[in-house]
């Protein structure tokens, strides 16, 4: 049973690569997304869309760890928070320009991710999960208690939206485009990584670490690098979040947020290129509709995580792959053939 699950989950990527090779569907989506604020002048929808895109970036960050390397990074929201607070503190308290603070925040997250990896990757994988869970909590605690730096329990208030050559990015439509471009670049880069020699080695590590090692892959350095990418992406999303919401509190950096991002991934399809965006879109829209019950959303999301992992570990993208495979099998095409990514 494991084999089928694993096959389904990982050959998700095979089918996805089919679509990805022809980038046309993505281009279409991008064009449609670009037209949205021009056609629908609704700030609420804009707001939802921006939120979905910001959290998608975070989800892509988790996806490179979980979907490509097979590791569970339970401190992800912590790095999101570090990126957010870095931008918040640098712009608000030190008067930095957003366009400098943002990449610096990403860099800080990458370096801290490297540091964590140096310690965590020398231990076994389940210890990695435990360690990152704890680090995630510690990050939240530190942010919460370090009043002087982060505003502690009161949070950081009044982070200003950036200016871009005189254009006020704070305006809903403008920020929408900033976020859209960011997401598009992220997806492009992540796809590149997936198809690269580096990315394939990650997939190999996920598929079997010992085998990867015996094939000559330096597992340790690969894990360190993907960790830096993952935390960097989390920080990227965090930086956007900081200037969009304008207010930061420690709560968003905690494990609950990490697991919500995990939920997005599971729903959409771990290890796929569409999964993170798809899952974030669906669940966030769901979350919007149960606005008042934020604290109790895990009454539904908890069991949902369990059900997903038990019956639909490949997520929606996985169901799509299975439908595709069934269809091509009926048509008579050999399902034995597998499209390789640009090899």
């Amino acid at each position, binding site marked *: 049973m494991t084999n089928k699950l694993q096959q389904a989950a990982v050959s998700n990527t095979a089918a996805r690569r089919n679509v990805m090779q022809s980038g046309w569907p993505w281009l279409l989506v991008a064009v449609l997304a670009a037209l949205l604020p021009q056609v629908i002048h609704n700030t609420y929808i804009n707001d939802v869309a921006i939120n979905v895109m910001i959290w998608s970036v975070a989800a892509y960050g988790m996806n490179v760890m979980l979907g490509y390397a097979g590791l569970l990074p339970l401190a992800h929201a912590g790095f999101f928070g570090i990126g957010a607070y870095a931008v918040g503190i640098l712009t608000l308290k030190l008067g930095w320009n957003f366009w400098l603070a943002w990449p610096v925040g990403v860099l800080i997250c990458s370096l801290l991710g490297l540091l964590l990896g140096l310690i965590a990757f020398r231990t076994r994988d389940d210890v990695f999960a435990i360690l990152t869970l704890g680090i995630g909590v510690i990050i939240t605690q530190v942010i919460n208690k370090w009043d002087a730096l982060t505003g502690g329990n009161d949070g950081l208030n009044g982070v200003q939206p950036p200016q871009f050559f005189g254009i006020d990015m704070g305006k809903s439509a403008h920020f929408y485009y900033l976020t859209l471009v960011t997401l598009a670049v992220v997806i492009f880069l992540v796809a590149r990584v997936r198809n690269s020699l580096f990315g394939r080695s990650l997939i190999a590590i996920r598929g*079997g670490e010992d085998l990867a090692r015996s*094939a000559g892959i330096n597992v340790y350095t690969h894990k360190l690098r993907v960790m830096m990418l993952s935390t960097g992406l989390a920080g990227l999303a965090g930086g956007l979040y900081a200037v969009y919401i304008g207010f930061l509190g420690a709560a968003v950096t905690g494990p609950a947020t990490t697991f919500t991002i995990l939920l997005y991934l599971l729903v959409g399809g771990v290890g796929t290129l569409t999964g993170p965006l798809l899952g974030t879109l669906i669940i966030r829209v769901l979350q919007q509709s149960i606005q008042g019950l934020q604290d109790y959303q895990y009454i539904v999301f908890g069991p949902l995580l369990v059900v997903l992992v038990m019956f639909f570990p490949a997520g929606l993208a996985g169901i799509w792959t299975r439908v595709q495979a069934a269809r091509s099998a009926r048509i008579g095409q050999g399902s034995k*053939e597998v499209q390789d990514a640009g090899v």
Partner: protein
Amino acid sequence: MLASDHPARPDVLLEFDDLGIRFGGNQAVQGVTGRITPGVITAIIGPNGAGKSTFFNLISGFYKPTSGRILFGGQDITKAPTHEVVRLGIARTFQTTTIYKELSVLENAVLGHRVRTNSGLWDALLGTGRERRQRAASTEAAHVALARAGLAGQEHTLAGNLTQEAQKRVSIAMALATEPKVLLLDEPAAGINPEETVNLTRTIRELAAGGLTVVLIEHKMSMIMTLADHIMVLHHGQKIAEGSPQQVSRDPAVIEAYLGGHAEPHVKQAATEELAAEQAQIQGGHHA
């Protein structure tokens, strides 16, 4: 004992000195000393549980020995991590076919070539020339490895959909793609039928003829006798005999090990004669 002592191919000389490993209370391998002669096919045989796979795990860097040392090309690789050992030129396959069943045959082979590339995350993100060049090189190397392993034409098949024999060839291809100097095959013929065994034997001989130093663990005596130029016998984790197939098949210690030492003398005599006869027969065909 020095690499320079050996006349032929000193850089491919794999030597081990008093090699041993202990798991808790169990001494799985002990005091194994010797060398793998370059350019020939060496077979490692012994009864079940003799420590053959463990020995492979030691010389391929998969396990770290608790005693002794390993030298490759004169360099001490005792403490070298697995991927480093592969980089230096020792590749291996596993007993239970270990390949990536969810990937295509070609992708499996491409992974083997990763050790010869250094294109990293930055190269991936920026789409550098290095990434493009090395990806092309890896694809090329993978095709070559697949051809040598007898899988040309199967590149895009899902590895998990192949027959047992073909899957074993995939793991051989993966190992070949690492561009090894020494190839360790752990029971390559396990679980395949006689016809497939003959095919695989031919492939292995071709690989050795191409200059590759091959070491294999096998139980199928016919395969051993036709392929091996040199045999090493392990029992209870120790080396009990070594030499040419003729020498080894007549060695009383070896016969003792296989028959358990409890057989009647006349049974042992009969077994020895039978083995020698079989040997002679195969030997006759060997030089044909």
